């Protein structure tokens, strides 16, 4: 017993001497701690996306964007390999909580990309923020997530647009371009759909239109005739249903059976911007509109070529550019704040990382200009961590080529 103690003491003294020989030791002064990465260790980034279930297409879309962003840097950052690991957060609060708990328990993780669904983020953000991590989302669009005093927590950012932008674009398109004067909305109880339809209806009423009906279906419903009959009683000009598959296709397919909906234009949102939607919805989908993220330009074409090369085909949804930008926001910030020792050891302050992302201003991302500072949305409140400036949005129109010809994505007919 006594001997083992003296060996231990000797070892401690030896370690201290060795450490002193290695130069001035790094001292972490960051208020919420640092991540230290030894010379042969990788920089660990995690994602929490929806990998299984009905919304797996969103996860595939985002993972592709993340992988391309990493391979664009040759898979390394400041001489360290970039390690990407993932958790399945699903498209639910439970999934978000579970994934967040697992990610927060791993001290080597520097930053997290996720989640896809606002419901998952709402449940995950507290745990992630409490662990000192940053969470950058490629596709959470629910407004409350970035409003201080609502769901927002320090460390949360998103590269995609808030639905305060998307809902307004949809309402302006319906009122000004389609000449609609009445609208009915249907949501599915999720934070995304509920908040988006509320923004759309509010903006539509501000423009001078009337909102005839705001209702909801349950996730899992197959019979939409009852709610469509309620909608048809007022025969609105536009029916806006920012929900997901399979409920969206059910609404489209059953809409033609209901008397009173003959002159109603159907309109969905980015939750339905998925390549399987037109074919599943059938002939009634021809001519309907979808609001959603829209990115164009030479850089984007270059990105799509990399996608076809590295992953194959075309991205299944519209959020890959935001996933690419989310990854770069994190990696750029690490590059900026990391303190490197002579031997290559990295020290990353967690609060410094947050400050670096918050300070991003006028960054030219794949999806457009990104500025992560505070934004003022009038009576709704001040948003924090909204990096998108709302320029990467458009209205798509489904044509026969998407329904029967397998074409994707559909043509964009309007941009704000």
């Amino acid at each position, binding site marked *: 017993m006594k001997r083992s103690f003296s060996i231990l003491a000797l070892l401690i003294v030896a370690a201290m001497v060795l450490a002193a020989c290695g130069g001035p030791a790094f001292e972490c002064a960051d208020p919420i701690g640092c991540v230290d990465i030894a010379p042969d260790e990788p920089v660990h980034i995690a994602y929490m996306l929806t990998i299984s279930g*009905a919304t*797996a297409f969103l996860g595939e879309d985002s993972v592709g964007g993340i992988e391309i962003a990493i391979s664009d840097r040759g898979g390394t950052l400041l001489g360290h390999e970039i390690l990407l690991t993932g958790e399945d957060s699903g498209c639910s609060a439970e999934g978000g909580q579970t994934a967040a708990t697992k990610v927060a328990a791993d001290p080597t993780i520097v930053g997290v990309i996720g989640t896809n669904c606002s419901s998952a983020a709402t449940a995950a953000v507290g745990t992630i923020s409490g662990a000192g991590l940053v969470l950058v989302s490629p596709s959470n669009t629910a407004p409350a997530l970035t409003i201080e005093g609502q769901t927002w927590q320090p460390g949360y950012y998103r590269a995609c647009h808030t639905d305060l932008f998307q809902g307004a674009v949809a309402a302006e398109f319906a009122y000004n371009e389609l000449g609609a004067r009445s609208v009915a909305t249907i949501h599915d*109880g999720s934070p995304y759909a509920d908040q988006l339809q509320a923004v759309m209806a509010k903006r539509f009423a501000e423009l001078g239109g009337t909102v005839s009906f705001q209702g*909801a*279906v349950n996730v899992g*419903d*197959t019979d939409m005739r*009852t709610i469509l009959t309620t909608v048809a009683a007022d025969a609105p000009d536009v029916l806006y249903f920012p929900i997901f598959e399979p409920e969206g296709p059910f609404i489209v397919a059953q809409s033609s*059976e209901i008397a009173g909906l003959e002159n109603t234009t159907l309109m969905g949102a980015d939750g339905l911007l998925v390549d399987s939607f037109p074919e599943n919805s059938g002939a009634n989908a021809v001519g309907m509109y979808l609001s959603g993220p829209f990115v164009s330009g030479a850089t984007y074409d270059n990105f799509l070529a990399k996608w076809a090369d590295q992953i194959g085909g075309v991205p299944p949804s519209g959020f890959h550019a935001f996933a690419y930008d989310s990854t770069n926001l994190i990696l750029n910030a690490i590059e900026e704040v990391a303190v490197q020792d002579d031997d290559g050891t990295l020290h990353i302050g967690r609060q410094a990382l947050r400050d670096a992302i918050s300070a991003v201003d006028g960054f030219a991302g794949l999806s457009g200009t990104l500025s992560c500072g505070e934004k003022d949305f009038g009576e709704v409140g001040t948003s924090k961590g909204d990096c998108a400036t709302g320029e990467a949005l458009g209205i798509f129109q489904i044509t026969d080529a998407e329904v029967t010809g397998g074409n994707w994505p559909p043509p964009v007919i309007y941009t704000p």
Partner: protein
Amino acid sequence: MLRRYMDRFSWVDLFLRVFQIVVLAAVVVGIYNTVTTARYSSAQWATLVFAGLAQGSIYALIALGYTLVYGILLMINFAHGDIYMAGAFTAMFLANGFARSGFMNSHPVIAIGACIVLAASVSTALAVFLERVAYRPLRGAPRLVPLITAIGASFTIEYTFRGLYGASFYSYPEVKALRSLVNVFGFDVPLVQLVVLFAALVLMVGLYFIVERTKIGKAMRAVSEDKDVARLMGIDIDRVIVITFAMGGALAGAAGVFNGLFRPQGVYFFMGFLPGVKAFTAAVLGGIGNIPGAMVGGLFLGVFESLSPNLIIEGLGIPSANQLKDAVAFTMLVLILIFRPQGIFGERLTEKKA
């Protein structure tokens, strides 16, 4: 007199009686308000009724599988919804193949017939396989054991299909021949809804005759009455049970194709869960173990579910009526079970069976 009444008095009975009156009053007030405001046209009501009947006949076909198995083994086969999914999923590929080659539109009857045969075969095979692998080794075990196994079997089937075909959504093709509108009592009804209703009724009547008029039907009824005595009478119980599972599977497979014709979207690995729960509700509603009960329970649930949001809930001024559709359906189940624990057509179980 009063004293005897007081002895029998119980607060629970009083509560249930009050509950019954309140619900009945709510239903009457809701219907009255909706009818007097005349918000919907008669054509819109007709749409809801016929869609409800088509949906109800699909519930009824699945419910028959629950009721047949329960009648014989006193066991709830919770994997039945997934047996339905397996048939619907497999036949979807054949139907899309027919649609691509143009055969679906040139010979719709043969094509749909082939899909039904394929779906019924797959579902039958799966039901028989499940019985052999998951349920037969546990016969005679406490009743909770096969119930848990059934839930496990349900997950196994679901995630096998998820593994095979992924988590994305598939659709049945549009059948042009079924898209026309037929005039029924002055209302335009999509032909597909009438075809589904009629075909389901033919299958249900066929099943009723098999059970009531044939030798194997007699054997099924005997096993259901008393397994031990049936065995003493020389009935091969295992064979009867396998045939019962096969019949339930075939009906579920056919229901899967009908569902694909009626409502082409939303074919995916989890599609059997909700219809399974609804069909189980329909079976309990009609009186589980009772064949005409499952038919009536299914049709009733389909129509009730389709009409109640617009007819009753909206009349009461409750917002987002449509989201309460399932709540209303299950509330009705609770109500019926309070006042008729044996279901609409059910008989009181003997001590031995209960």
